[in-house]
C-alpha cells in the first residue's frame, strides 16, 4: 500500500524539476489517449513511456510494484471480462473448467482486453507518479496559477499530506483494538460491519483534534488574510516544461490521427 510509505518522494530528478502544470498535461493525456484508440500496440507505447517517466522520476521499483498490485483486480477482471463480450476474430483460447464454466477468447477479444488493462493502469501510474515527484506546496501554487481557488488547492495539499497520517492512525487503532481482543473479521455480516464502530469513533475524534490544530497553524500563518498569494519558491514554466508538455500533447494528436485513419482501432463493434 503506497500510503504506508508517504506520497511525495524527495529526490533530485528531471521530473522533480518540472513545473507541476506540465506534469498535469501528462496525467490528462494518460486519460484521453487510450480513449481515442483501442489497439494495444499503440496503447502499449503510452505504457512504455510511463515506465520511462517512472525511471526519469526515480520512482522506486517497490512503489511501481505497489501500483501494479493496486490495479491487479481490475486488470484481471478486464482480461477475463472483455473476451466474453468481443466475439469477433479467431478463437485462440478455450478452457473448460471442472465446474462447467467455459472461458474462450478470440485474438481481437484478447487484444481489446490488453488495451483495457493499459487504459486502467496508465492514469493510475501517472497520478501516483505526479504526487511522488511534486511537492504538495507546488500543487497549491499550480492550482492558484491556473486561476482555480487556492483554498481548494490548499485543501487538496493538506489532504495529500494527511492521508498517510490518517492511514497509519487507522492501522494503529485497528491494532490497538485487536490487542484488546476485538476480532474484526469474525461473526455474521452485521457483526463484521458493527466491529468497525470502535475503529471509526477514535479515528474521527483524532481527526477532529488534528482539524483544530491544523486550522490554528493556518491562522498562525495568516491564512486567507490577503487575496493575492505570494510564494517563497515561485514555480516557473521554463523551456523544458514547454518541451515536456509538447511531447504529451503531440502524443494526443498522434492518437487523434490514429483514430481518424483507423490505424489505432481494432475491427470490432466496441470501436
Amino acid at each position, binding site marked *: *500500500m*503506497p*500510503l504506508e510509505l508517504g506520497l511525495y518522494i524527495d529526490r533530485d530528478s528531471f521530473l522533480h524539476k518540472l513545473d507541476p502544470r506540465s506534469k498535469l498535461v501528462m496525467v490528462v493525456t494518460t*486519460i*484521453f489517449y487510450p*480513449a481515442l484508440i483501442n489497439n494495444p500496440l499503440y496503447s502499449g507505447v503510452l505504457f512504455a513511456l510511463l515506465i520511462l517517466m517512472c525511471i526519469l522520476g526515480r520512482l522506486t521499483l517497490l512503489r511501481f510494484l505497489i*501500483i501494479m498490485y*493496486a490495479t*491487479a*483486480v*481490475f486488470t484481471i477482471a*478486464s482480461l*477475463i*471480462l*472483455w473476451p466474453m*463480450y468481443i466475439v469477433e476474430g479467431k478463437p485462440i483460447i478455450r478452457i473448460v473448467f471442472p465446474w462447467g464454466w467455459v472461458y474462450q477468447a478470440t485474438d481481437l477479444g484478447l487484444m481489446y482486453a490488453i488495451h483495457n488493462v493499459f*487504459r*486502467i*493502469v496508465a*492514469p*493510475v501510474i501517472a*497520478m*501516483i507518479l505526479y*504526487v511522488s515527484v511534486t511537492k504538495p506546496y507546488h500543487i497549491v501554487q499550480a492550482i492558484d496559477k491556473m486561476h482555480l481557488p487556492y*483554498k481548494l488547492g*490548499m*485543501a*487538496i*495539499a*493538506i*489532504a495529500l*499530506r*494527511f*492521508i498517510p*497520517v*490518517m*492511514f497509519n*492512525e487507522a492501522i494503529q487503532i*485497528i491494532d490497538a483494538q485487536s490487542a484488546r481482543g476485538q476480532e474484526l473479521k469474525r461473526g455474521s455480516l*452485521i457483526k*463484521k*460491519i458493527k466491529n*468497525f*464502530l470502535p475503529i*471509526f*469513533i477514535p*479515528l*474521527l*475524534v483524532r*481527526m*477532529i483534534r*488534528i*482539524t*483544530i490544530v*491544523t*486550522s490554528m497553524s*493556518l491562522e498562525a500563518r495568516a491564512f*486567507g488574510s490577503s487575496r493575492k498569494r505570494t510564494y517563497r519558491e515561485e514555480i516557473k514554466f521554463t523551456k523544458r516544461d514547454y518541451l515536456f508538455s509538447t511531447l504529451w500533447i503531440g502524443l494526443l494528436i498522434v492518437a487523434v490521427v490514429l483514430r481518424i485513419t483507423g490505424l489505432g482501432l481494432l475491427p470490432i*463493434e*466496441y470501436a
Partner: protein
Amino acid sequence: MSTPPKEKGKWLVITVIVAVLALIFGIWGAYTYVTEFKWGEPETWTLSRSILMLGSGFWFVVGAILWIVGTAFLIMELAGYTFMGFKITKFKIRWDSIDIAIMALTAAVYGGALAATGGLVVIPGFTWIRPANALTPVFGVLFGLPGAIGTAIGNFIADAFAGYLGWGSIGGFVGNFILAYIPYKLVSDPSLRSPRAWAECYLSIIIASVWCSAYISWWLYIWSPGVSPVPLVGLPPIMIWGWFFPFVIINNLLVSVILSPPIIYILYPVVKNWGLLWKDRITILSRK
C-alpha cells in the same frame, strides 16, 4: 418545546420500519450477489435482472435526471445558494482556516480509512464491501458543505491509490459529494436526539445511496464502449446497469445503515463542543 409522546412513538415506528427494510434489502442484496452472480452474466443476479428488465433506456433517463439535479446542487452550493426546506436560500460560508481544515481532514480520513479498512469479505470469494463508506453521511450531517466536498476529494484521491482512477472518477467525485450532501440536507437535527431525526437519517442514507450509484452509473454509461464514440471508460454497458449500479447501492447502503447513525449520535457532542458543527458555522442571508 418537546415533542409529544404520541408524535415520538409515530417516528419511532417509522424509524424501525425504514431501518429494518433497508437492512433486509442490503443483506438480501449482498447474499444473493454472492450466491447468484456470475461474472459476465449480470442477469444471473435477481437484483440485476429486475434492474435490466426496465431497460437501459429507462435507466438512462432516470440517471440523466439525477445527474442534472445532482450537478445543479453542487454548483448551487458552491455559488452560495442552498435549500432550506423547499426554498432556495442564500447563505454565507466563511471558507476560513477551520472550513479548509475540515475539508482537507475529511478527505484525508476518508481516503486513509478506505485504504486501511480495505474490503470486508462478505463470504470468501470475489465480494467485498467498503466499511469506510459509512463515513460519508457522518461528514455530511456533522460538517455540512465542507464535509461533503471533503468526501468528494477524498474519494478522488482514494481512487488514485486504489487503482480506479480514470474518467469515471469525475462522476465518482460528484457522486460521493451527493452521498454526503443528501444526509446533510435531509437530517434536520444533526444531534440525532429524536426518533424523527433517526428516521430522516435512515431515509437520507437510502436516497443518497441510490442517487450516488445512479449518478456514477449514468456517467460511466455515457462514456462506455458502444455508447460513446470516444469511450473513456473500460466497462461494458450491460455491466454498468447490471452489476455496478446495484453493487454500489448495496455497498453504500449496508455499511451506512449499520454504522453511520450511531457514529453521528456519539460524535455530535464532540463536534458541537469544538465548534465544528455546520449549523454553527454558516449564516443564512436571505430566502427566495
